[in-house]
């Protein structure tokens, strides 16, 4: 009986759905986290009788055929790249992006990572690094005598140095963006890497050519909405139960068959 397998595909799909939702909820307070969702598609159909096939020699034809589907599959878990809320932190190296773009991070393995998490710190050499200690790209070095770091909306980092009246420009923060940002691959630690699906990174300065602006002293919260996630969780859980009921009913039918022929 196909219904058993069909319902099993439904249960597996809802299991994945719950996993994705629970990951969203777990990352509700993760800076720069973007929520994910699962997309489902129906599986192949078996055609027992094709619609439009002749039903008599008088030229009449069958109006509706018999198509029996074989369940559901999960096709992708795209991220919803909407803007998260900005929350003030009053830390001078905390940066939030308002609008499009990702910070570029030099990964230890030589690749370039992309992140929306702007909680930067200085390392022992005065370079701006992420919470894991990965270098911001292009690197920005802050001399240890510098005071009053300011990063403007265009990404220009400046500081006042002793003995200088004018603030000294220390560097320019650049952002990257992608044609298809849902195609980015998550590698954990709030980092994304480029894939074939995302297209190549386009780099530019904040507040120009469609890039977002920077906001110093703020962090971007995750874009997970508790109400949406909980209602999605309830729906997924109920859908799982429904599929389990189908398994049960199919089992009952099978047992009725086997018991009818005890002899």
């Amino acid at each position, binding site marked *: *009986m*196909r*219904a*058993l397998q*069909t*319902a099993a595909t*439904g249960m597996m799909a*809802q299991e994945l759905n719950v996993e994705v939702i629970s990951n969203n909820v777990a990352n509700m307070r993760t800076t720069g986290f973007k929520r994910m969702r699962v*997309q*489902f*598609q*129906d*599986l*192949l*159909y078996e055609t*027992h*009788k*094709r*619609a*439009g096939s002749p039903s008599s020699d008088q030229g009449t034809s*069958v*109006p*509706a*055929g*018999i*198509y*029996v*589907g*074989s*369940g*559901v599959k999960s*096709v992708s878990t*795209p991220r*919803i790249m*909407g803007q998260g809320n900005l929350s003030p932190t009053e830390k001078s190296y905390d940066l939030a992006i308002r609008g*499009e773009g990702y910070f570029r991070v030099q990964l230890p393995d030589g690749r370039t990572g992309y992140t929306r998490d702007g909680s930067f710190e200085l390392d022992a050499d005065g370079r701006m690094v992420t919470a894991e200690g990965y270098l911001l790209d292009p690197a920005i070095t802050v001399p240890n005598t510098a005071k009053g770091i300011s990063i403007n909306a265009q990404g220009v980092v400046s500081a006042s140095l002793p003995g200088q009246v004018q603030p000294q420009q220390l560097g320019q923060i650049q952002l990257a*963006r992608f*044609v*298809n940002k*849902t*195609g980015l691959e998550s590698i954990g630690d709030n980092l994304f890497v480029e894939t*074939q*699906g995302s*297209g190549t990174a*386009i780099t530019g300065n904040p507040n120009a050519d*469609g890039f977002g602006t920077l906001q110093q002293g703020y962090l971007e919260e995750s874009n997970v909405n508790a109400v949406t996630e909980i209602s999605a969780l309830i729906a997924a859980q*109920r*859908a799982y139960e*429904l*599929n389990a*009921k*189908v398994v049960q*009913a*199919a089992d*009952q*039918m099978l047992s*009725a*068959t086997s*018991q*009818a022929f005890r002899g």
Partner: protein
Amino acid sequence: MENIAPISLSRHIALQRAMDVIANNVANSATNGFKRRSGMFNEHVAPRARADSLRPADRAISFVIDRGSTLDLSQGAADRTGNPLDVTIKGDAFFVVRTSSGERYTRNGALSLDARGELVTSDGHAVLAEQGPLAFTAADRDIAIAADGTVSTAQGVRGRLKLAAFTRPSVLENIGGNLFSAREAPRPASAEIRLESGVLEKSNVSPVVEISRMIEVSRAYTSLAQSMQRGDDLRRSAITKLAEAA
């Protein structure tokens, strides 16, 4: 009496198939733009044997025959996602999708961009506008889809989504992957059909309907199995009794 087994068997097969259709509906209760199918059964009257000399004469017997499963194209529930590339069709029409085997149709409005900036379904098939596939460049920002299907960005209008309509739902065939193929060429959708962006159309499977149908099918199946059992008992006791009498 000898007909109990074949008649019951025809009903058994039909009920199993009905169950398969229900299972597929339930499994796809979270599939965007999924349209449920429902089984349709008929009575098939067997040709009467010509044995008039016997008393009583043969009576007509009818088998169950599976006529088809009809597609229910009613609107699915709307889920507000806020994603500008999620589009719902309000009314009787389909998005046109280009696949390697020709144009296919879908109600799944969860669209996205691929690496080349083309508007695609979650499977990567291009979604067609009236002038062909829609492609965006890296400079395009703030993609918006208007109620009449016009796709525009901050840089200007990019095209209008092509919508297809069909006279009868029965010309549509499920091919999996949320896609339909059609036996007839579609006609352009009526101008009254509206799109809404930021909203996804969920599946139109109603759990209450499916579960009550499922219980019905399952009970009918069980009671049928019992009546087959009784027919079997009847035959067995007839054989024993007649053997004793002989």
